[in-house]
């Protein structure tokens, strides 16, 4: 049950206690530790003044939901409506909002882009709903926003707690927990890739590749691709394939010709054929690097030869 709390500090206290309870119950149920939330390296947010408290709370909640608790929070949040805990979708919206507020507060948005524009609109609307303006300015306005954010977070975590307890009592608990454990097993946190990147890079003679930098760029994409594989895949092998592909495509030499050269040379319109010819040019060039004109000549020869 959510206790009425009137100060940010009191709310934060309740939030932390919910996190601990969820972790404790889940850990016993799943037989793994930690249950839902891993350690959060960020210290608890300083809540005063309210503007700082708001910004730091967003960062802290983002790490809590989307990094430290990535698998478990998603798994439990998917089941809120199953147990009748989020009838109007407000709690799920909070889960998304934390990510959006973080983007809104910490990135330079391009309103010409569809997703950035939407993020801006959603966040400004939320701020307006809380304090009457999309651009809080006074301490009072920031405090209202901070209280609203922490209240929502507390309700969300309380709902996660109730969901965990409901699973504990569910007739299908074993099957649900099996799925949950499977998700945990399939999740490969960013750092899991770092060692592998270092090994692959060394094997390919590219010791100077910065694993963390490469992983930051590709982690989401790699995770998505691994999710589509069969259950028995070996992480070390499949992830290695993905890393090697990136290293091969990202670090190859720049071709002396462009697609524009190909369109002009062969008098063709933009389309898949341009990509195919560039691919062929890449093969020719990788075999023996050469100048622009020679490459175009060889490509022409290959294309016409094929046509003959």
């Amino acid at each position: 049950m959510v206790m009425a709390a009137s100060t940010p500090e009191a709310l934060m206290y309740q939030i932390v206690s919910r996190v601990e309870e969820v972790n404790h119950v889940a850990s016993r149920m799943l037989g793994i530790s930690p249950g839902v939330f891993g350690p959060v390296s960020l210290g608890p947010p300083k809540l005063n003044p309210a503007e700082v408290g708001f910004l730091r709370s967003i960062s802290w909640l983002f790490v809590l939901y989307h990094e430290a608790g990535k698998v478990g929070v998603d798994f439990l949040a998917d089941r809120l409506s199953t147990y009748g805990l989020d009838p109007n979708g407000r709690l799920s919206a909070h889960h998304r909002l934390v990510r959006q507020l973080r983007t809104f507060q910490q990135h330079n948005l391009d309103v010409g882009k569809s997703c950035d524009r939407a993020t801006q609109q959603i966040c400004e609307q939320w701020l307006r709903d809380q304090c009457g303006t999309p651009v809080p300015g006074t301490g009072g306005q920031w405090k209202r926003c901070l209280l609203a954010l922490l209240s929502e977070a507390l309700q969300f975590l309380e709902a996660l707690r109730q969901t965990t307890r409901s699973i504990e009592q569910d007739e299908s608990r074993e099957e649900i927990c099996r799925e949950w454990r499977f998700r945990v097993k399939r999740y490969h946190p960013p750092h899991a890739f770092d060692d592998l990147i270092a090994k692959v890079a060394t094997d390919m003679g590219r010791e100077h590749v910065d694993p963390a930098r490469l992983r930051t760029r590709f982690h989401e994409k790699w995770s998505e691709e691994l999710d589509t594989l069969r259950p028995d895949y070996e992480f070390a092998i499949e992830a290695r394939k993905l890393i090697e592909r990136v290293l091969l495509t990202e670090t190859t030499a720049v071709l002396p010709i462009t697609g524009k050269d190909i369109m002009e040379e062969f008098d063709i319109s933009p389309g898949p054929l341009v990509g195919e010819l560039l691919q062929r040019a890449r093969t020719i060039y990788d075999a023996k690097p050469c100048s622009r004109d020679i490459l175009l000549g060889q490509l022409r020869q290959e294309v016409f030869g094929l046509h003959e």
Partner: protein
Amino acid sequence: MEARLDDFYRRLKRGPAFLLLGQNYLRLESGVDSFLSEVIRKYGGASAEKETYDEILDSGAVSSPESALAWMDDRCRRLSVPRWLKTAASYLWNGVYTSAIDSIWPSCFRTSWREIQPLFEEKYRPSDPRNRSLLHCTFLYGCVNRAEEGERPPLTRFDYRKRKQIAISLARRLPEAITPMGVLAIEGHAGDSDWFSLDDLLPILDELNAGQTHIFSVTQELLEHPDVKELTQKGKLLLHQEGLAETLVRGEGLGLLRLGGPPEGEESGRRIQLDDEVLTVPRDLWNQVSRSAIVLDDALLLQPPPLSDEARYREFRNFLSASDGKPQWSAYARGFAFPRHFEKTLRQAVDKSLGARTLIDDPVILHGQTGTGKTVALAALAYGVRRTGKYPVLFIERKTQRPVQSDIDRFCQWAEHCGAPACLLVWDGMLEPKDYSECLKYHSSRGRKVVLVGSSYRIEDKFAREPRFVLAPPTLNPSEIADFAPFLNMFHPSLGELLRRAEAPPDDSFLVALYRLLPPTRGSIRAGVSREAGHAEELILQRASKIRPEFRQVTALGRALLQAGVITEEQLLTSETKDVGGEAVSEVQDLTGLVMVPGRFGLRVPLELVVRALGKHGYSNFMDLLEGVDILRSFEDSVGNIDVGPRNALEAKLIVQARMGGARTETAFAKRLLLEVTDGGGGFPDSREIDFAVELVRSMGAQGQERAHFAPYFKDLSAALQQLREERGVEHPRLMLQEANLLREWAVDHAKRGEQDVDLEGSFHQVGSVLRRALDLLGDERRNRILRAHLLIELAAATAARARHVLGRPDRSHEAIPLFDEARNAIFEARKQDPSSLYPIDVLEWATEAMLESSVLDERAYAEAVADVLYALQTVEEEDLNLEQQERLHTLRLKFAHFVRMEEMAEEAFAALVAQGSSAGYYLRALRMSGLPETSDDLSDSSSVERLRGALGYLEEHRSHFSRDERCLGLLLDLWWMVQTQSRFFDRERKLLPLSDEQWQHCLGIIHDLEATSTSHRPTSIAFVRGLALFHLGSVQEALEVFREVERESEQVRGRRRVIRSYMASTPSGQPRRFHGDVRWVAEEGNRGEVWVEELRHGIRFLPRDFGRPNIARGDTLGEFHVAFNFLGPIADPPGHLRP
């Protein structure tokens, strides 16, 4: 990349794309089917080495099926959707079929941009089976979340065997849904342990073409199956070890496809910014309105991604090539549309209407011949207005299926409630202006402020001179020509020069021809300019120079088609015909004919229909045929329906003229299409094919632009529809109306020529039979009123034409009288069905004239016939007519008055009629005394009022003699109202009525008598006046009941009269009555409410915005107000709204 994957991505992108999920799909992620495990745990089942769905059959679940299914459904909510399926579901599929029975998977197909439509039984045939935003999900074996027998999964082996038949029947829809263009992806199929086994599945897959079916995550068992091997060898099955999601993700990574929904499904999708407010269109509303129109949301306004010069040129050519059909909004953002000068005039007319403060009944019409840039201008207008951020905009592309007006209305209502001052509806329908007027009246009658802009063929009559008619001239004017070269140079600095050298004079096909005149690549422009005889110039200049002198007469498009090799000079210059029936034509010619004949009228053929008309061989070769011909295109609408059509109607017309040369061949192609039409199952559901057939026949028929060309073949076309009805069982009233109309027109043409050797009598008789059968089929449902009226009018016209025909034969002229009576009955019935239509009166007028001229009627029958026509002309509710119809009404009145010369009728004639007991005598005499309709034009003129008063006195004096005659009573009511109120019915807003109780009582008496005749042609208006009278007489409860009845019936009142506050509650001295009250109820949206009126002791409607109090709440007082009346009933009206 592998060629087969490349082909998969290509087909997926082109669509239609269907997904078949097998019963193994839940096992793919973790190797365990959690759902099946749980069911077996709960209900047990025969132990087997591997868990299969067979174990559910005859298990413990049978003992209590309903609770077992409920339990299973409950489990589904607890179990996870596989991650790979979320990825796979994020693709924009056109449809999903599944043998799975759980309710886990549908949730991941239901997104913010997509709703799902479950489909369980054969009897349901959706009209949009490929709708991407309303995804049809076919549950071959039912679903655990259903309890009905036909929808739930089988739990016994016998039920399973029964359901199998249905599953096969449902799956057999796949080939037609996928079409020869599409692709089927199968994932998670459990082979022979799947309920939809390979024995069931493979024969269906065999009906698809090579390369269309891809099976993913294939197992060893599948690879070794002999039939799978055979189909794989034939190229019909493509097997992949990889999973579908993996393949999709790879395709996305390569940039070959897009996952994650349509642009409107993105986060900025479905949003409409109006000034500073951002509105989000609710998903269900979005999906509903998208069936009928394109909503221009903010996603369309975003700047499209930048393009290289080459890609920009290609996109420009693509834009020119595909300027008909669904607009490419990004092309407008990129400035690809050459702005013609008439567009400024159009924009001014639209801005003026949008800024007007009143409801609008008259559409803005952009008219002009084909190929003048109307479609582009309309899309540019829609885009331009939306960009201002002031108004919501809907765009309706040209298609055979008409938009559902209630869809549009719901959107406009929502927009208004959100604060939009008006909505712009741009409809590129190429319809007659009256069709747009009807549409607009529908919206204005509901109080919607909609500005409608429509396209039309060139209109020559005098109405086209009104400012709201904007002409798109066929040729570029000198100033436009001067602007054109700089415009082209935006795409390549030499393009304007190259085109100038091509000596293509900017004639009336120039804009259509432009696509074919431009070199295919940007590179060839440079080559063409730098080398005098370069590749591009050879194409354009050399061929142009070979054109013989007489060929100069041919249009720029003709030359362009020639240069492209689409037609030869001989084809273009001669009129050689091909006999489709007897002589073999090539497949390409066949396909071209089937598409180009409708295409010349701007119609596109539903893909399923053209494929059926081509036959089985045509199905298997369809893609080769389509891709081999540059002049055909496929079009997909917003709900996934696919049509095939020409690039442009003008191009189609030229090709038809060149390749076919005559109406006979064109008719033969049309007949082939008509004979393949299906109606989509029982009843009269909306069907694209029926719509298409109706539009095709109308275009080729008497209402079409080329009546004379096709007139000799009307009977052939009618016979095709008859054959469709009698032999193929497609009995649809709309088609039957066309069948009858064609045959009648054919018979009338022959009758006019006095031909004796054709069976005209038989034809007229057949027309009557078809129409009566259609009326029987239609029943008396309220929603079919308009169609019933059309059928009745056609029946009346056919019967009257038959009467006129026999009148020409002296020995049989007496037979005309019963036919005339029959025709009149049909006309009167038609007027009841649709009182606002002028057509019945038109038919009545000419039919009566023919009878009067023949002298077969006796004196009394003559007078009755005359009185009927005059009364019909008198009671037309002019307020509901557009200007053109008003003009037509005026012409009819003059014509008939001239014909009967009533002013010259002697008093003795009236006296004789009266003596015979003919109430027509009273009517005709009173009408002549009144001087109507001219005297009603100015009721402030005392001499006019005196004439009306005299006629009123005459009728009052003789009222007992015509107590059951609607004409006399109707005239009496009109005269009384005009004399007492100095106004005609509904002629202004907020009219005060200075009537005493006695006067209201008298009025009520006339209305009671009139309604007792049960033949009134304007029952809704009369009931409205009855409500007014009762209200003023203090019978408020009774009055409110009458107004409720009026509101229900007023659905058929088209035009703003329905919502205009015509009258005010008044004192006998003609002052507004004052009322007081407080709010009893306010809608959640704050847009409407009810106020308790102390003086009436009843609640009535009020609109918070009228009182400038959007936040008004229950219990708040409304202060002092007036009460006004419209067809929706009494409504509180702020005192300030009444102007002196």
